[in-house]
């Protein structure tokens, strides 16, 4: 098997680390998040085509944004409930 583009490989590893870091605050727990994240990355580990890897990276960036939005909304709604619906 040929080894993937080292530049992209670096990007993927960095994304994985960033996502792991974000998972520490995941509402369903870090373990839940980590297992699923690992599975999601492992299932794509066989990708060798640069274009496909890039698409995978884009997807990961999208998921990152979704998680950020999830955290923001969760916080906003909790605070809104506590401070505005008295």
């Amino acid at each position, binding site marked *: 098997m040929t080894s993937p583009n080292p530049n992209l490989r670096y990007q993927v590893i*960095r994304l994985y*680390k*960033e996502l792991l870091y*974000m998972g520490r605050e995941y509402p369903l727990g870090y373990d839940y998040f980590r297992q699923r994240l690992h599975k999601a990355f492992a299932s794509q580990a066989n990708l060798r085509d640069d274009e496909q890897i890039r698409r995978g990276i884009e997807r990961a960036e999208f998921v990152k944004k979704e998680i950020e939005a999830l*955290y*923001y909304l969760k*916080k*906003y709604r909790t605070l*809104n409930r506590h401070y505005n619906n008295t």
Partner: protein
Amino acid sequence: MSGLRILVPVKRVIDYAVKPRINRANTAVETAGVKHSMNPFDELSIEEAVRLRERKVPVEEIVAFSAGPPKAQDVLRTAMAMGADRAIHVTVEENKGDLEPLGVAKLLKQVVQQEKSNLVILGKQSIDDDANQTGQMLAGLLNWPQATQASKVTVENEDVTVIREVDGGVETLKAKLPMIITTDLRLNEPRYASLPNIMKAKKKPLVKKTLADFEADVTPRLKTVKVQEPPPRKGGVKVEDVDGMIGKLKELGAL
């Protein structure tokens, strides 16, 4: 105008998602071994300072400040990861008890003078004490105009226009710098402090100080007599039919 020198005081509080527990003596909320993070209203103030800069308002500097236990450094790092340029940490040992809003306001007054800040953006209140006092007290001590519970801030030269949330509507205030602003929930959407930004923030300067470096009297004036859980919610009941419901309502005196 030379530019805005923004001071953003932040507080380390029990994380908003944690259910607080009261200690055995019923005098305070248990903080040991509980997850802490930045007060959510302070995240809004950091975000607003950073957004002012991004909106091309001439922002010279954004300084984050915190007075608290050594671990308050973490929230200062978060503040710098979100975009503050540097941070000042006044170490207050945990066993000395919490600072009160007046004590913090006195400290902040001196910090404002040392740093020559001309805009202070504070969270309207912290989610642990819910005092909603520090900003107002600081405005009083400095004799600066204040706009509390801001939901929109615009800066044009020396003029600051703030739309604030009041009961059932909004109020628009205009004042000249220097000024105090406290943030409300709908001011902006704070950005996530991502891992790479946290790493970069470790290189930003953080100055450590102690209470002895300030000439402020921060001795507590208040004594917490008792902290109590709210009464547990009583469960509802199911009624069989309309007559049952009317009976229940009569029992409760609602009919």
